[in-house]
């Protein structure tokens, strides 16, 4: 630990220069339980090891727009940013994120496997360093579904067997896929069908059958709240949110898991950092995405580590003391029928289908 006086002087100097001192870095993330898990698993050990002070900024939801504005203003104040993979691809396309070479910039697995192989297919963009696998899936009220709890995704579209409201996200992504899947389209054909105007109409027509029974959400916390209030019978949200409703708040809610959509969340380093800040950001990334650190994060939140080599190291929840492996979206029991978010498809079709989806919603 450095003497306080030095740190104070450094802080004063940093403020005077209007920049970030050598002892500080700003890490942007989502806030809430997720940031807490990163604080415990990454930030605290890293600060202890290097003496770097880490400032948290909960701006990930607006990260893409803000990074673009910072880039235009020529003053980038963030060092490392946590974003979902789709945003990472967008940032990479816009030239706002730095390209990463996994072989030299990321730590190999303990057994010597290269980082590129350890992350495997999850390296979906040249700028993206995966951190966790999460999924968007359904939770349902165990007390409101009668004697036959739902086991497959099409229960969402079955108003006769499961009357009541459902909550779905107010965007086309995932909903369109689920609609087609339950309208008889084979899983491997979903994106081919969705690429055609007829396929988009088909998906919207299927959603139309439950439109009057849907509550649309836009924040991840909405569905857990709606389930807890009994306002909806079932609803989609991120699996970690459902974990906390079920295990931490002990609500009568269960996971559906069927046709859960895997998505990735991870780090990017903004393009255009000074050499000194870039080196520090890379040093942090090297530390925070190694095998042990990724496994550590799963002690605090039920998202699966992105490295294959981390999975066997996942232990128990730090406070509840329950085994975390069965709560991971990647657990074989949960991952019987899964979808992987098709990044390239949605990068192309997002604006087009979103316009149609919103027009349909407004009808």
């Amino acid at each position, binding site marked *: 630990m450095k003497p306080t006086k030095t740190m104070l002087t450094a802080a004063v100097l940093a403020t005077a220069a209007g920049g970030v001192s050598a002892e500080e870095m700003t890490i942007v993330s989502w806030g809430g339980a997720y940031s807490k898990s990163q604080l415990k698993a990454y930030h605290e050990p890293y600060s202890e090891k290097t003496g770097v002070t880490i400032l948290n900024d909960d701006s990930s*939801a*607006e990260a*893409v*727009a803000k990074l*673009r504005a910072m880039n235009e203003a020529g003053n980038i104040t963030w060092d490392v940013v946590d974003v979902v993979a789709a945003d990472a691809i*967008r940032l*990479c*396309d*816009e*030239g706002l994120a730095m390209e990463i070479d996994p072989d030299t910039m990321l730590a190999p697995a303990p057994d010597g496997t290269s980082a590129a192989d350890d992350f495997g297919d999850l390296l979906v963009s040249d700028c993206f360093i995966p951190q966790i696998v999460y999924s968007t899936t359904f939770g349902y009220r165990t007390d409101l579904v009668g004697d036959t709890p739902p086991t497959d995704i099409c229960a969402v579209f079955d108003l006769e067997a499961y009357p009541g*409201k459902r909550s779905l996200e*107010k965007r086309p992504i995932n909903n369109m896929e689920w609609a087609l899947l339950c309208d008889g389209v084979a899983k491997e054909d979903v994106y081919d069908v969705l690429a055609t105007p007829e396929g988009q*109409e088909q998906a919207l027509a299927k959603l139309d059958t439950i439109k009057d029974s849907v*509550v*649309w959400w*836009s924040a991840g916390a909405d569905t857990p709240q709606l389930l807890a*209030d*009994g*306002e909806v019978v079932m609803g989609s949200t991120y699996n970690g949110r459902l974990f906390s409703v079920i295990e931490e708040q002990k609500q009568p809610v269960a996971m559906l898991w069927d046709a859960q959509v895997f998505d990735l969340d991870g780090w990017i380093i903004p393009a255009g950092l000074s050499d000194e800040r870039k080196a520090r950001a890379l040093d942090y990334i090297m530390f925070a995405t190694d095998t042990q650190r990724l496994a550590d994060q799963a002690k605090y939140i039920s998202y699966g580590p992105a490295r294959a080599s981390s999975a066997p190291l996942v232990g128990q929840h730090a406070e509840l003391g329950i085994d975390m492996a069965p709560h991971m979206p990647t657990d074989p029991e949960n991952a019987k029928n899964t979808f992987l978010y098709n990044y*390239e498809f949605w*990068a*192309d*079709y*997002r*604006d*087009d289908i*979103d*316009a*149609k989806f*919103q*027009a*349909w*919603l*407004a009808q």
Partner: protein
Amino acid sequence: MTDASENTGPMLAADGTPLKQSLARSLRRQKLRALMLVAPLLLFVMFSFIVPIASMLFRSVENSIVQETLPLTVEALQNWDESSGELPDEAVYDAFVRDMVVAVDNKTHTRLGSRLNYEETGMSSMFRRSGRKMGKLDPETDGPFKDQVIEIHDGWGEPKTWAVIKTHSPAVTNGYFLNAVDMRRTPEGAQAQPEDKQILIKLFGRTLFMSLVITASCILLAYPVSYLLATLPMRVSNLLMILVLLPFWTSLLVRTSAWKVMLQQQGVINETLVWLGLVADDARLVIINNQFGTIIAMTHILLPFMILPMYSVMQTIPESYTRAAKSMGATNWTTFWRIYFPQSIPGIGAGSILVFILAIGYYITPEIVGGTKGVFISNRIAYHISSSLNWGLAAALGTILLAVVLLLYWVYDKIVGIDNVKLG
């Protein structure tokens, strides 16, 4: 008297200069001093208000990215007739490869792909996928390119692709404004968007309509409250005033979420109605996630902005006027309608303008309680700013909204008169 001739000459100040000149000089100095006093504010307004608005207005027509990224291609495409239905010739492909090699080197090709993807779905991945292979071509030795480029991605073999690039190549475009009114720029000129994508005009209309309804309901609710505040004894009215201001000290999100708890189907109001037996358990009222929910929540949130100007105007209405009217035999209603109400109109006007303009730009509350039919145009603006990154379209939508507000302001000035607005 005796020196009358002296008065015909110029009047002199104490120091001997002509009085007129001296006066002008001291006035100028005064003006300068005043200007220096307001200079900080002027500069602040300039840089924090006028410059951003001007840059937003400019962004809605700015489109230099195509010309900057593909300068040679844009020039070569001038000789190509997009209505011929045939592919451009080798010259265009050659220019395209030259441009792409530079663009891939600067990593600007994917940026252009995102820009063109707003116009034609699929362009984003075409540029991303083609980039790596095209960046490796050598423009001097590897030609001819037409077949090679089409080999890299068959999208380059479609005349439509080149028509999109040509249509959107001007550095100043009306494309974003056309998009903002559910139209689009095509090689054949402006055309309507396909019907299943038309939503923005509808949202503009809905935003205006609902803002008017919210303003009207604010007037109805705020008038009696302000009247009470202005006429009750000071001690009581101060207490009431605190109640009016209390919501101001609570976070907007908290207030909006509180309405959710109140209005949802398992919420306080529905539970109470069911308990009282006024509503059947299986027919609970739907009063949130629709227009009604938005109107209720926004009326509540904006109410203080209506009460405060009304209150301060009503406070200045002398009580003696109404007493005089009554003493001359006017009924209570006549006194109110002929004497009190006309004097309170400036307050209504000020409050209405305030509430209406605030309402038109709201997006957090409609997003949370609006469901599908209660969202505003600002929600789309927010989407295009933060999710789709189509800032050009967002700027065009914002510009139209600004123009609509100015237009309504002008109409208001014509009908009611802007001099007739008072904040107290």
